[in-house]
């Protein structure tokens, strides 16, 4: 079993991105994915809170607002475990590249701000593999708010930590809650050696920095090209496709 406190022993590579909502990390990880695929790597991508198993439950709990800090944290851990053992560990063991939009650090930062024990949440995720590189997209709170409001004009309830009763105003609550999340990320940067990216820079500048770091991490890593099992048209790729007439 992997162990979060040490380097994972698998032949694959695990790169993850972290940051508060509005830091632009999802954009960056998609650009990274595109580039890696174009370079001929086999890339697997997974994102936070997306497994079918607990998605409905999380949604229901959020809707009824009946989640406590601990059930909130455990639901995300369950979702993560489900994805980890199905989508992250197998490709890692098979020597492929896995990209994750948010990882255990999201739980370490957010759940602790919600009030769970920092030691407990770290032990909870101890089954996870430690990433090869963890990018942290660092952004001032005001920039994040502006980006979110520009993109979808609305901040979500839990994203703003409204369940904590910090403020009745959602933007205010976001500022307070995500402000404390930022502090936790700073702490995690020291604790786990996250690679900090200045998320106020232009998108392409950030991406350049990310690609440079990844290139370095891939030195000596052999490309596993996809030759088999790529949908049904793989067979025809080797022969001329007979035309209809």
């Amino acid at each position, binding site marked *: *079993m992997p162990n979060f406190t040490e380097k994972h022993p698998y032949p694959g590579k695990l790169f993850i991105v972290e940051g508060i909502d509005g830091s632009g990390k999802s954009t960056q990880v998609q650009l990274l994915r595109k580039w890696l695929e174009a370079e001929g790597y086999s890339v697997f991508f997974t994102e936070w809170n997306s497994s079918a*198993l*607990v998605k*409905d*439950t999380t949604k*229901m*709990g959020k809707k009824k607002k*009946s*989640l*406590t*800090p*601990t*059930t909130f944290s*455990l*639901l995300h*851990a*369950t979702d993560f*475990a*489900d994805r980890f*053992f*199905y989508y992250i560990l197998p490709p890692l063991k098979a020597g492929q590249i896995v990209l994750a939009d948010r990882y255990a650090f999201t739980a370490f930062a957010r759940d602790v701000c919600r*009030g*769970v*024990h920092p*030691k*407990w949440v770290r*032990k*909870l995720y*101890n*089954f996870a593999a430690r990433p090869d590189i963890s990018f942290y997209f660092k952004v001032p709170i005001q920039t994040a708010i502006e980006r979110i409001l520009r993109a979808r004009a609305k901040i979500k309830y839990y994203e703003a930590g409204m369940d904590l009763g910090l403020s009745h105003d959602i933007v205010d609550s976001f500022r307070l809650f995500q402000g404390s999340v930022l502090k936790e990320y700073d702490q995690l940067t020291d604790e786990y050696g996250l690679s900090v990216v200045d998320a106020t820079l232009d998108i392409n500048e950030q991406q350049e920095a990310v690609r440079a770091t990844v290139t370095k991490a891939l030195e000596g890593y052999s490309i596993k090209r996809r030759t088999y099992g790529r949908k049904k048209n793989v067979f025809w790729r080797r022969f001329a496709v007979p035309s209809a007439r």
Partner: protein
Amino acid sequence: MAAKKTYFGDGLPYRPLGNLKGKLIAIEGTDGVGRTTQIDLLREWIELQGYAVLETGWTRSNLMSRAIEAAKMGNMLDRMTFSLLYATDFADRLENEIIPALEAGFVVLADRYIYTAFARDWMRGKDRQWIEDVFGFAVVPDLICYLRIDIENLVPRVIESGGMNYWESGLDLHLGEDLFESFKKYQEGMIHAFDDMAERFSFEVIDARRPVDEIQKDLRVKIAPLLEKKKVENAPIPLKAEGSAS
């Protein structure tokens, strides 16, 4: 006997336990040992003394029961994912039912507790530390009664009471060549796991090979001091049905 409640591990920092008036009593034991029968009788007896009782089981929370059923149906989960589902379910009940009931002075009867989760997880993996860490937010019970049975006595009981199911037989583990062998090996392992915990977690071990009323009597002797009314332990035991393993 007003021992202060403590958390099993790291606990819930946002919910200090303070002075919970109620009593938390966990009844542990393998499948088919007769926990439910005993809990029904205990409830009667405790309520007659004027204490309000909250019964709580394993997998009964509103939040999670559907997800757990769905997961069992699919039979495709990793052990840790499964353990986390149960932990989430338990956390929901703990914070929304058990702790509030203890605050209000209820006697909480838990039909299985975290030790069942430990035993099941250990059956499916080697590292014991992780699962105990995960349940670090649990409240340590005032009393843990372990209904102990051996496999020779358990098997006929379970067959008489309607057979063995997939999970109780640990079929996901492929322990034996058929349902019966698998059930036997799995339950033997569970009994072993409980025995192993008995000393570490100070279980009160109760010999469950005996008739229902004898087991009940023992349980009452153990529980009476918590209720601070010692004389009532001799009240008659209303037996519903005779004949389970005498």
